[in-house]
């Protein structure tokens, strides 16, 4: 039986136009809405698959404002068992702080009798993109860590993890307990069913705080660069533009014959 912890971060939806708060210190998500990274959705799907294969559990954890419960519930709706919300102003935390807050929650559960065999995170958060919370967490927990994996299979106390390296698919075999960070692409994200949503509403979510004091992220300001003026040459409309397009292809010497 594997107990998996999966960590998700509430982030302003970055797919539309990115709007900053007036002080330029954060992305304003009030209009765009909030989401989690595709990597974390993949991590959730892998966590659920691992737990299903072994009749284990999936705990979903988020460090952030009370509204992060929405992201926790979204993950619970696709198969999570329970949740942990570590309430904090995540904008004041740097990656070392987040790792410490997660580690404290893991250790508290361990003291209460639950060991997480596998902790899954995204490879990088969709907003701050620090690329380090998972690795930092592994050192705090003194566990091996593999970054950027796309699939995981657990057999007894060994996990086989696969990710893309420079020369091909790299395979790792690590002894549990372990930490891994996930890149999307190896698993289809799960979509919630009506049943899943109902279960998520009722699932238990523990709220806690972090006892540490934040070192912070070092952020001074955010800027959204002006897009450079368009330089596009419109070759024409519809099929009639084909000769003009092919002329450009020939000019670029990308047509061999």
């Amino acid at each position, binding site marked *: 039986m594997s107990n998996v912890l999966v960590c998700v971060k509430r982030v302003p939806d970055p797919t539309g136009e990115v709007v900053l708060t007036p002080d330029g210190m954060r992305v304003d998500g009030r209009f765009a809405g909030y989401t989690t990274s595709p990597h974390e959705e993949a991590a959730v799907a892998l966590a659920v698959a691992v737990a299903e294969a072994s009749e284990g559990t999936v705990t979903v954890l988020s460090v952030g404002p009370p509204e992060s419960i929405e992201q926790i519930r979204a993950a619970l709706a696709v198969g999570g068992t329970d949740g942990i919300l570590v309430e904090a102003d995540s904008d004041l935390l740097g990656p070392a702080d987040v790792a410490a807050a997660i580690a404290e929650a893991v250790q508290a559960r361990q003291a209460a009798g639950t060991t997480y065999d596998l902790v899954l995170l995204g490879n990088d958060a969709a907003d701050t993109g620090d690329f380090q919370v998972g690795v930092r967490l592994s050192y705090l927990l003194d566990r091996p860590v593999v970054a950027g994996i796309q699939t995981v299979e657990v057999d007894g106390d060994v996990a086989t993890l696969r990710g893309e390296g420079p020369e091909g698919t790299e395979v790792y075999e690590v002894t549990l307990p372990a930490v891994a960070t996930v890149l999307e692409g190896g698993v289809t994200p799960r979509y919630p069913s009506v049943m899943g949503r109902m279960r998520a509403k009722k699932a238990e979510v523990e709220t806690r705080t972090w006892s540490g004091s934040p070192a912070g992220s070092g952020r001074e300001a955010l800027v959204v660069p002006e897009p450079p003026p368009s330089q596009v040459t419109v070759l024409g409309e519809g099929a009639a533009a084909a000769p003009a*397009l092919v002329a450009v292809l020939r000019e670029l010497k990308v047509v061999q014959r």
Partner: protein
Amino acid sequence: MSVLVLVEVEEGRTSLVSREALTFARALGAGDVHAVVVGAASAATVADCRDAGVAVVHEAVDPALDRYAAAAWAAVVEAAGRAARADLVVAPGTGRGNEVLAHVAARRGLQMAANVVSVTSLAPLVVERQVVGGAALERATVSSRVRLLTMAGHAVEPSPAATPGEARVSPLAVPVDPRDMRAQVVRVERREKGDSAGLAGARVVVGAGRGAGGPDGFAAVDALAERLGGAVGVSRVVTSLGWRPHHEQVGQTGSRIAPDLYLACGISGSIQHWAGCASSRTIIAVNTDAEAPMVTKADYAVIGDMHEVLPAVLDELG
């Protein structure tokens, strides 16, 4: 004081992002530039380092390092940092570069800034780095004793130093701790032709997004890629809907491409997609919407239905 650069080698050559990192490190003017390579430094790498103005190339040769283990690489970077008396370490913002520096940061209690594009002040160290997938830049202070940075791709153009460096090769003794080998690559399953490796290195990429309309909407895209000897690249909508496999995805959470030509059809050009194709030399967009970001950011565009335009292009090519 010096700047240490983690140099990655791909098929015997210094990777492009590593050469960018070396140029960046030199331009800082923050002392001698040292390089560290895991494995024997090839003549080509030493030559690249010399051109880039590197004073010392630290090489760590140990059979235990033959299999990639990020923690062991971190131990190598730490040893090189001590040998170089570096107070700044720069790595390419690749999967490995980010992973290894994160290990160094965790082991030494240091701060790391990922995806840096520029340094605005050296003391205190203030960097600008890409966040939100490149949609915004964050100005951040990195204040630990030793500062760790990874470089966003193409933030600088690699260039030779005015005076070449000595590039003295210095062997680094790194006793590999078994604890650092707990997570190591146990085997590599070589890539087959036609998957993402081909995409990342392709000279021509024909791209398709939601505008393809469905899994059956790719016939002309495939045919054109074939005709131009290129690869097919797709948007995340296409992979999420299961129309095409993820290894064809271009973007922040897919492959980064840098072809001579990217022909992007039925792709809106979101910032996350752009993050993967911005380095294309020439971009041609085919889109029904003249206002789509892919169109306004492209070099050339055809406004129209890709299902009409692409067959006509194939006809024209004969």
